[in-house]
Every structure is written in structure tokens, then in C-alpha cells.
């Protein structure tokens, strides 16, 4: 973790960072002189029986304590602002960065991991920042002051400190060093327990149906035992810090009492001096303790910092090109051409996911793509709005390379209904408006009617105002697909791509949607990916794909005559009808 990665996000709090040490110094000073003042009361006030003097010094003690309260409150005020503000800036930066990511970048991190980095890891940074602002300066300062005061009381007695301090520091260091690896193992054990639980939640029907409760319990028993084991080991080590500290502290007190007592007897040390010395030695050891805790927090936060840094430093792999920013080309017709396109998701993989693809689609015509699972149909269409960039060759829209458009122009003119589609929390209306913020109610109803969604949306008690949960949980798969189609239609795109987007819709409805589309989008180029022959047979042109290659292209009738793959697909779906 480089600190320089994070300093920009503290910029707006420079003032806080400058002012906080000031308050810390005041606070520490106020607190550290208290035992000294107490010893003055004992040695000068009590022994000289001077009540006025006692009152004077006593009030000074109270005054200093009140000053300390004010300083503390100011410190916390600024610390809270700075650390929360820092986390806020960090979150915004991360969110912006993630929005600029291409899918390859998101896949690289995995979306679950990006979410934790933006939430838990940022929170960790906030906590540690708060702790650092409050402790990182305070604890050492306290120690330094306490040492100075202690030495000023009696140099010889300070030898006790000189022995106790390194012993304590060393034992804390050893214990932490031994304990931390266990905490890393503990984290992994926690992950394993969570993953078994998660899987059981997902698979609850499977477990029940196959009566595998005992099997799952055994599985859980094992990971649960491992967690208990490693958690016990980890805590048992770190927990020793407390008693060790108490022991060192107790023994130091005894040593000071023994040596200091002798000095008091011989008159080389005042009684009050001995008493305040005892206070300072306690103070020093407690500060050391707090410092070690801060370092423990920091070492944990470094892991979080690394994870955040990794995201911030990742360059988005797909951005507007210089050419695209310069020429503000607009899409007017919707002509598509693939020129010897080869594509690999993973640049190292030997076999390309798309291999030397060339074809052309005229404006306002329909192209259908059919082919087996994993043949590359979805991959192919995702190259058009530049969700991915080609590895070789070029994709042209209206005879201009898609890389030479501004991304915004390109994507605003191309609508794509994805295979794994998603709706967002909010009302159905809000979701539809993703397609076009300015759409009128009439536009929206019209699009919903074309997508055969209007009827079922109106059947909900709140109609278009029906709230959808995350991922649209309260509508069925087929209903979700139809809402997604309506949403895409509202864009009134030049090019509309439908990637197997009616798979959960029954055949009757599927046909109705297709027929509606023809009338609604007369000037739109349509690309349809489907499994059913019935969904593709009316297209102007059909591409048959197999293992990343085009193995046939033409109209339904032509393909049926000439293309064996198409014939096979047709046979597989049509055979039974003939018999019937």
C-alpha cells in the first residue's frame, strides 16, 4: 500500500490534519501534568500545611481537565470529519472508477469482491483513520511527556522504566507476530463456514429432496470445528497481552516502591515525587499498549488499503478513443458489418471465442443468429455496442469502426436486451425510464404493449408503480424479460439486439412480441438470438454458429436446403410435428 495513493482523498481535510496535532498536544499536556501537580500538593501543600496552596493547585488541576475536555471534543470533531470525509471521498472515487470499468476489468475482480472493497474495506479505512488521528500522535506523545516528567523526578528510578519498557514492547511484539498469522487463517476459516451456509441456502431444495441433511451437517461440523480451533488458537495468543502487561506493570510498581521507598527514607526523593512517579510509569505502559493496538489495527487496514489501491490503480481496459472524442460521428442508418473479426476473452487462450467472423446487415432488416450453447452468439453481439473490443478485425456501424464513435453515442443508438438481464430496485415505471428519461406515459404504455407487458403490469394492484426488489424478485422470469424488452424499446434505437430474451416467455407471447416489433420499429435494424427455429425463420438473414465460427448464412429456405447444421437444429425441433 502506497500512502500517496490515498493522500488525494484527504486533500479537503488538510486543515483538520494540521489542527488536530495542536489539540492533541494540549490534551496530552493537560493530562500529563496532573500527577505532577498532585505531587506538588502532597509535597508542598500538605507537608507545609498550606491549604490555600492546595486549593490553588487543585483548581489548576480542574481547570486543566476542563481545557482537556475542550481540546478532546475539538479533536474528535475534526477527526470524525476528516476520517468520515476521507472514507466518503474514497467511496466516490472507487464508485467512479468501477463505473469506468469494462467487463473484463469487473470480471478480473469479480463483482462481489468489488462490492466488499467499496463497502467493508472503505469502512475499515475510516475506522483506522479515526484511530490514527486520535492515537498515533497521542500515545507516543504521552509516552515522551511521561518519560520526561519521570526522569525529571528522579533519574535513578527511571532505570526501572528502561528495563520494563523494552520487555513489554518485546513481549507484545512477539505475541502479535505469533498471533497475526492465525488471524489470517481464521479469516479463511470464516469464509469456508460462510460458503457452506450460503450453498445450503441456495440448495435447500436439493438437500431436502435428496435427504442429505446428515451429510451437510457433517460437512458443516468440519468447517465449524476448524473455525473454532483456529479462532481459539489465535485469541489465546493475543489475549495474553493483557495479563503480561499487568504483570510487567505490577512488577514495575513494586520495583519503584522498593527503590523509591529507600530514596524517600534517605530523603533524596519526596513522597509526592514517588507517588507521581508511580502514576507516570503506569501512564507509559498504557500508552505503549494503546500504540501496539493501533499498529495492530493498521496492519489489518493495510490489507484493506491494498485491496482498494488495486482497484484505484486499475486502468479501464476499454475507453473512448482519441479518434472517437475528436470526430463526433452519429449513427444514422444502422448498417452493421463485421470484417474478419476474431475475439478472445482471455488473450492467452489458444482457441479464439470468435474466429474470423465476417458478415453484413443492411439497415432496417432483421438478422437472426442460431447455434448451440457456447457457440459464441452472445459474444458476437456484445462487440457491437463495444461491451468488449475485438482482438483482430473490425466491427463497423454505418461504415465507421465502432471504436471511432464516442461510447455514449454508440450505446445510446444501440439497445440490447441481455440474456442475463436485470431490473433495479424501484418502481416498474422507473425501471422502464432507464430506456428514456424523457419518455411520456403514452410512449411507455406503447412500449409495454409491444413487449406484451402492459396487461400483466396493470394486473398488479399498483400497476406501473409496483415496486421491484433487488433484481426484480417479485416478478416471474417471463415477466422480467418482457419488462426488459419494453425498457430497450423505449430507447427507440437504430439497432436493437435481443439475446435469447424471450426464453422464459411462452411461445404464443413470443410470437406476439415479434410481430409487434416489426411494426413498432420499422427503421431499426434487428438482431435476434434464439434457440427456437420458429423465432428465427422469418428473419431476412440467419447466421448459424458453431464453436465461434459462422457455418451457414442465408434465409430460412436456403439454409434448410443447403446447411446441415441448420437442418439438424430444424429436425431436432420439427421432427415431432411431422409425426403429429
Amino acid at each position, binding site marked *: 500500500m502506497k500512502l500517496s495513493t490515498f493522500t488525494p482523498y484527504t486533500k479537503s481535510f488538510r486543515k483538520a490534519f494540521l489542527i488536530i496535532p495542536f489539540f492533541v498536544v494540549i490534551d496530552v499536556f493537560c493530562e500529563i501534568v496532573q500527577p505532577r501537580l498532585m505531587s506538588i500538593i502532597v509535597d508542598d501543600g500538605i507537608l507545609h500545611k498550606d491549604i490555600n496552596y492546595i486549593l490553588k493547585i487543585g483548581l489548576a488541576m480542574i481547570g486543566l481537565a476542563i481545557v482537556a475536555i475542550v481540546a478532546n471534543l475539538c479533536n474528535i470533531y475534526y477527526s470524525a470529519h476528516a476520517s468520515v470525509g476521507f472514507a466518503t471521498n474514497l467511496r466516490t472515487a472507487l464508485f*467512479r472508477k468501477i463505473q469506468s470499468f469494462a467487463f473484463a476489468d469487473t470480471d478480473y475482480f469479480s463483482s462481489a469482491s468489488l462490492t466488499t472493497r467499496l463497502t467493508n474495506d472503505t469502512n475499515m479505512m475510516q475506522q483506522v483513520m479515526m484511530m490514527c488521528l486520535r492515537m498515533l500522535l497521542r500515545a507516543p506523545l504521552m509516552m515522551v511527556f511521561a518519560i520526561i516528567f519521570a526522569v525529571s523526578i528522579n533519574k535513578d528510578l527511571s532505570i526501572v522504566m528502561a528495563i520494563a519498557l523494552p520487555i513489554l514492547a518485546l513481549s507484545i511484539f512477539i505475541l502479535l507476530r505469533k498471533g497475526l498469522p492465525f488471524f489470517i487463517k481464521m479469516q479463511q476459516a470464516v469464509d469456508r463456514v460462510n460458503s457452506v451456509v450460503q450453498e445450503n441456502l441456495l440448495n435447500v431444495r436439493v438437500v431436502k429432496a435428496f435427504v442429505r441433511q446428515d451429510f451437510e451437517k457433517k460437512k458443516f461440523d468440519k468447517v465449524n470445528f476448524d473455525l473454532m480451533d483456529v479462532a481459539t488458537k489465535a485469541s489465546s495468543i493475543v489475549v495474553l497481552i493483557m495479563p503480561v502487561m499487568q504483570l510487567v506493570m505490577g512488577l514495575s510498581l513494586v520495583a519503584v516502591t522498593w527503590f523509591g*521507598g529507600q530514596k524517600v527514607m534517605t530523603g533524596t526523593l519526596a513522597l509526592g515525587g514517588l507517588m507521581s512517579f508511580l502514576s507516570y510509569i503506569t501512564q507509559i505502559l498504557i500508552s505503549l499498549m494503546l500504540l501496539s493496538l493501533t499498529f495492530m489495527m493498521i496492519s489489518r487496514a493495510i490489507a484493506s488499503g491494498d485491496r482498494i489501491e488495486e482497484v484505484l490503480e486499475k486502468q479501464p481496459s476499454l475507453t473512448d478513443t482519441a479518434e472517437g472524442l475528436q470526430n463526433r460521428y452519429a449513427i444514422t442508418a444502422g448498417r452493421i458489418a463485421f470484417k474478419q473479426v476474431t475475439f478472445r476473452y482471455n488473450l492467452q487462450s489458444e482457441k479464439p471465442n470468435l474466429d474470423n467472423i465476417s458478415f453484413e446487415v443492411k439497415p432496417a432488416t432483421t438478422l437472426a443468429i442460431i447455434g448451440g450453447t457456447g457457440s459464441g452468439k452472445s459474444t458476437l453481439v456484445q462487440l457491437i455496442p463495444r461491451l468488449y473490443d475485438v482482438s483482430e478485425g473490425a466491427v463497423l456501424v454505418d461504415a465507421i469502426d465502432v471504436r471511432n464513435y464516442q461510447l455514449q453515442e454508440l450505446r445510446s443508438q444501440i439497445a440490447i436486451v441481455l440474456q442475463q438481464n436485470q431490473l433495479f430496485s424501484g418502481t416498474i415505471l422507473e425501471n422502464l425510464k432507464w430506456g428514456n428519461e424523457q419518455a411520456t406515459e403514452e410512449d411507455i404504455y406503447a412500449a409495454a404493449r409491444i413487449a406484451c407487458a402492459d396487461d400483466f403490469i396493470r394486473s398488479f394492484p399498483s400497476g406501473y408503480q409496483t415496486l421491484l426488489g433487488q433484481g426484480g424478485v417479485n416478478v416471474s422470469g417471463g415477466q422480467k424479460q418482457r419488462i426488459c424488452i419494453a425498457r430497450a424499446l423505449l430507447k427507440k434505437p437504430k439497432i436493437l439486439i435481443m439475446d435469447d430474451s424471450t426464453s422464459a416467455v411462452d411461445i404464443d407471447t413470443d410470437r406476439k412480441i415479434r410481430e409487434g416489433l416489426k411494426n413498432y420499429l420499422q427503421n431499426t435494424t434487428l438482431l435476434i438470438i434464439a434457440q427456437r427455429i420458429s423465432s428465427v425463420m422469418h428473419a431476412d438473414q440467419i447466421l448459424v454458429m458453431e464453436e465461434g465460427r459462422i457455418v451457414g448464412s442465408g434465409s430460412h429456405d436456403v439454409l434448410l436446403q443447403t446447411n446441415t447444421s441448420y437442418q439438424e437444429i430444424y429436425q431436432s425441433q420439427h421432427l415431432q410435428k411431422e409425426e403429429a
Partner: protein
Amino acid sequence: MSTSNKSIPVSLPGPGSSRRIKNEKPQQGFKALWRLMRYLSSQRLMLLLILISLLLGTAGTLAGNYLLRPAINNYVLKKDIVGLGHIALVMIGIYIATGIFNMLQYRLTIKVAQKTISNLRNDLFDRMQYLPLQFYDTHQHGDLMSRFTNDMDTVSDALNNSITQLLISSITLLGTLALMLYISPILSIIALIMIPLMLYLAKLIINKSKSFFAANQAALGNANGYVEEMISGQKVVKVFGHENAAIEQFEQLNQVLREKATKAQFYSGMMMPLMANMSTINYALTTIAGGILVITRGFDLGGLTAFLQYARQFGRPVNEISSQYNSLQAALAGAERIFAVIDTAPESETIDPLPMPAPIQGQVTLSHVNFGYVPEKQVLFDIDIDVKPGQKIAFVGETGAGKSTIINLLPRFYPLLSGDILLDKTSIFKLDRNELRKKLSIVFQDTHLFTDTVMENIRYGRLTATDDEVIAAAKLAAADSFIMQLPQGYKTELTNDGANLSQGQRQLINIARATVANTPILILDEATSSIDTRTEIAIQEGIDRLMQDKTSFVIAHRLSTIRNADVICLIEKGRIAEFGSHVELLKQKGKYYRLYMGQFD
């Protein structure tokens, strides 16, 4: 000069601790506490040891400090070096013994706490295995997961720290108070004047910070939810060019979070230092009063020394008790949520189950079945079907018509509103539930896999199956060829719910799993929906072979898959609309006919 147990979190916070909700109150805290205690009670001996070492450790700490008084009064001031030596040795002995007792106490506490948490986790998991499906239908996964993570963490913290710290602090407080009163009742009164004020202030701050933490938590939840949605929906965001709108919206949520978080941090942050400073004021007041007492009433200096130490550290246990009390409350609220799941009634056991008909013929009869997931909303109406042994019955109909629901009734996942389901003329509700389920194998619509090898995922169908049997099943399900292309073949580890496989491939593994189970009754719910038609033809033959001599239930959208069923049942809005063989239904020229012809229009 304090050697009391200061509030320093000795164990690192758990993974969910940053999200801990700090504002919760248990509904019936005492009941939850009592139950936690019952969990602990299985380790009585350990608890006794902990209690003894805790008492001795705390007493030792107090005694060590107290001995400063005689050390100064009786020896230092009387210049008795031998006596000072003796008392120093006694103090060393006490501190070492205290150290040992404290170590023992900490270690044993952790052992007991971890063991208890592990038992609690086990009980929660065990119960989850037997909860009825309605429970899962009505509870979000995230909610249940958080009981396993966040709630367990807070309970674990309480067991590791809060309970013992509360005991230690209370004992320390009482001990200190007793010693203070013993040394000087008058000074004690002065020292205690501030305590009610401090407590009142602490209460004020805690209440304030609680309400701000609640607001903070809510804002955090909103922001996190938004982030999760926008990241997992990234494709849609890109496709609609919604990036800037998303950033804008996020910044708004982030600002709200910032305001709430700043307040929460400020109020929770000021608690400790404020209490410490108040305690200092108290200390100063006591010093003044003590000094005057020494001068006017001849109070001894050693007594003052010891008293001042107690006065100085008196605020700490008070502070500690109030903050530990808070975490204990959060823990009890968490424990209540955990117990709520553990207390949920499991799937009802069949009392005196009838013997399973043997051998199973496989006749399945649905007799006038009425059903609703909730009684108020009936979804199946008078379903009356008799499936003869070895027959294949197919269900067709629109999404949401109730096809999957019918199939989910067969393994007794849900109770009926009325009617009955019979297996070989015996009501399935009178059979042992597990015995019944062992006679069925089901391929579900949503195909999830376990983190394990492909081999083990298939073997899940029948744990005793040999590797050869697993491979034979995979071949039958046409899964063998793609499995062999995986990096380690059948030994390939599937992670993250089989993320490295396509939906179609996962379905094939699920079919293989049902194949290996080899039960008399087979149920396929949209088992081939993501498999392309040619692969489907390839596995069709396998499935046909699998279905021989088995009673089978099939749901499919593609009518080609169900064409050869003995009986086809068209479901519409929870009722049987058409019923008969493929040929019969086509002849009827009803809905089925239109549906079927629609595929090839």
C-alpha cells in the same frame, strides 16, 4: 497507577464487526441471556475455574494496589527497610499469582466462548436443515446469512469479552468502593459526588450516539445496497449508458451517509475521553479534599496515596460497565435473532409412519389437491391426477400457471390446503418424510452446485455410488464429453456455484446427479431449458432410458421434449385445463394444439 482491567479489545474484531448495529435492544434480554447461560452450562467445570480465577485475579489486582498503603505508611515513612523488603516480596508474589490467574481466566474464557459459539452455530445450521420451505420462501438469504455472520460475531464478542469484563468491572467497582470506604468514608463521599453526574452524562451520550448509529446504519445499508445493485447490474448500466446517472445517485447517498456517519463517529468517539477527563476532575477534587483532611484531621499520607489511586481508577470500571452493557445488549439482540431461527418449528414429523410400500410400484395419485403457499392465496385448484406405475406425465402451461408448484408438492415440501397425494395408494403424509424423499429424484429449475469436484457433485445423488457409476450416469446425461474437457476432468473443483460452467452444463450435471440416484420416481422441472436443441436430442435418448420403468414427471417449455409422454396435462391458472395424450390433445384442437403449432408457425 492502575492495574485494573482496562477496556482494551484484546481479540481482533470479527469480519462483520464493522457493520455491527449498535442500537439494538433485545426484546426479552433476560430470556436470551438465560439461554446463552444454558449453552455455557455444559461446561460447568470450566465455568467454575473461570469464576475462581476471575475472582482471584481481580482480588489480586485490588490487593496489590492496596498494599501500597502499608508500604508507605508502615515502612517508608517509618524508615523500615526490612519491612519494605518483605512487603515488596509479598507484592511480587501477589502480582505473579494475579498474572497467572488472569492468563488462566482469559484462556479458559476463550476456550469456553469459542466452544459455545461453535455449538450455537451447529445448532443453527442443524435447525436450518429441517426448516420447512415456507421459511426459506419468506426469509431472504441475506437475512439468514447475517445471522450466521453478524449476529454470531456480536454474541461471540460478548462471550469472549463482555460477560467477563462486566463481572471483573463490577467486582473491581465494589472492591474499590469497599476499600475507599475502609480508608476514609468522608473522602469516599467526595469522590462519589461526581459519579451520578458521570453516569447521567454517559447515558446522554450513549442515547445520542445510539440514534445516530441507527441513522448511520440505515444510510450505510442504502449506499451498500445501491453499490451492490449497480455493480452486479453493470452490463445493463453500460448498455443504457447510465454510468453518470449512477454516479450522481451514488454521490447523493454517499453524502447522506457522510452526514450520519460524522455525527455517529463524533458522539461515540467522545464518550471515552470525556469520561476520562471527568474522572480527572474527580481526582483533583479528591486530592484537594484529601490534602485538607490530612492537614486538619491528621489523615495518613499512605492512606491518601492509596485512596487517590482508587479515585483515579474509579471512573474506569464505571465507564467499562456502561460500554460493555451496551455490547451485551447488542449481543442479546443478536442471540434472540439466532434463537428465533432455532425455535422455528421444523418440518413436522410423521407420527407412527406407515411402512413404505415395498417394492415401490410407482403409482402416484393427486386426489382433489387444493394448495396455496399462504392459505389466503390459493394457487392450485382441485388437481386430480392418477399416474400409473412407469408412466411419464408432462405438465405444460404458461409461466406462473402452477406447474412447478405441483411438482414441489410431491416430496412433501409443503402441506396441502385439502386433498391428498398418494404413493401406491398410501398417503405420502402418512409415510416417513425422508423415506419418501429417498424414492424421488428431482432436477430443479434453478441449478446450483456445491463447492466440490464434479465427481462429488454428481455423487450427491447417491453417496454410495462408485466412480464408475458416476461416470456412467454422466455419459447417460451427455455430460461426460464436456466434463472430460475440463482441466482436471471429473476431479475439477467447482467453485463459486459452478461459475466456470455454462447454465446448460450445470443442468447436465444436475441430470447426471438424478441419474445416479436411480430412484423409482423421477421429476424434471425445466431440466433442459438452457440446453440447445441438438444436445437435448443427444440426452433425450439417455433420459428416455432413465425413465424406463420409472414413474416420471416432466415440465418443459419445449413441447418436443414432452411429446412422447403418456399423459400431458395442460395447467392454466392453477387448474387442469386439458388432459390426455399428445395425439388426443392435438385432436381436441384446443389450447395445447395452438401452443404446439405455434412453435413452428
